[in-house]
């Protein structure tokens, strides 16, 4: 009985076509690249929310109150703050406080 190479080595892999041999590793490499890109992009999108001193601040102005329904004049009618002179004309006492810059 003669021994041939075919009976010693499983040659199934060698029977793969050129396309499969190239496409599978290429797809894996592309998937890894896309994954890294997604992670990097997601990270930068998250960082973009951050305020950076010296860079333009383009966010919508916001006003935080613990209970806006009770703490704003006319909050029930029009839930928008205008900073209008009319509101400031309402009589109230001398204000205090402090100012600073950074």
């Amino acid at each position: 009985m003669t021994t041939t190479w075919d009976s010693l080595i499983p040659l199934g892999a060698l029977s793969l076509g050129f396309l499969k041999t190239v496409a599978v590793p290429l797809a894996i490499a592309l998937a890894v690249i896309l994954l890294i890109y997604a992670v990097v992009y997601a990270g930068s999108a998250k960082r973009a929310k951050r305020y950076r001193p010296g860079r333009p601040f383009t966010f919508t102005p916001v006003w935080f109150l613990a209970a806006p329904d009770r703490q704003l004049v006319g909050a029930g009618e029009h839930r928008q703050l205008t900073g209008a002179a009319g509101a400031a004309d309402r009589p109230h006492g001398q204000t205090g406080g402090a100012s600073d810059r950074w």
Partner: protein
Amino acid sequence: MTAGEVTHAAATPTWHPEVLDGPLTTRQLLRVDEALRIADRTTELTFSVYIGDLADPARGAAERLHGELVDPDQSVLIAISPNQRVLEIVTGERVRRRLPDRECKLAALSMAAAFGGGDLAGGIVSGLAQLADHAGKP
């Protein structure tokens, strides 16, 4: 909803606004909300925080905003203008007795230091805590 956020001078009145697109993350919004509620509850004053541009002069604009609150005499407004890099703390007449200008200046200093490092939420939370601490219980 996190805090009682109100968009300011927006084209359309909104109550649940685009605040999530703002400079603070959801986690930071929750921290600010918690700090505001604790400050209000412990002092029985009204604390509010405005972040956005202030018309010149900034002090006058901040005082006008302060005047929009239901009871300005019992209220404290922290107005932050990141573009102008200006911070204004406005206290009402009755609040001044419990929260002197000197204490406000100390809080403003620490807040401005945090803002200079780009930490808006941290500065707001620590400033609120400091002001509430100084004001104390009624």
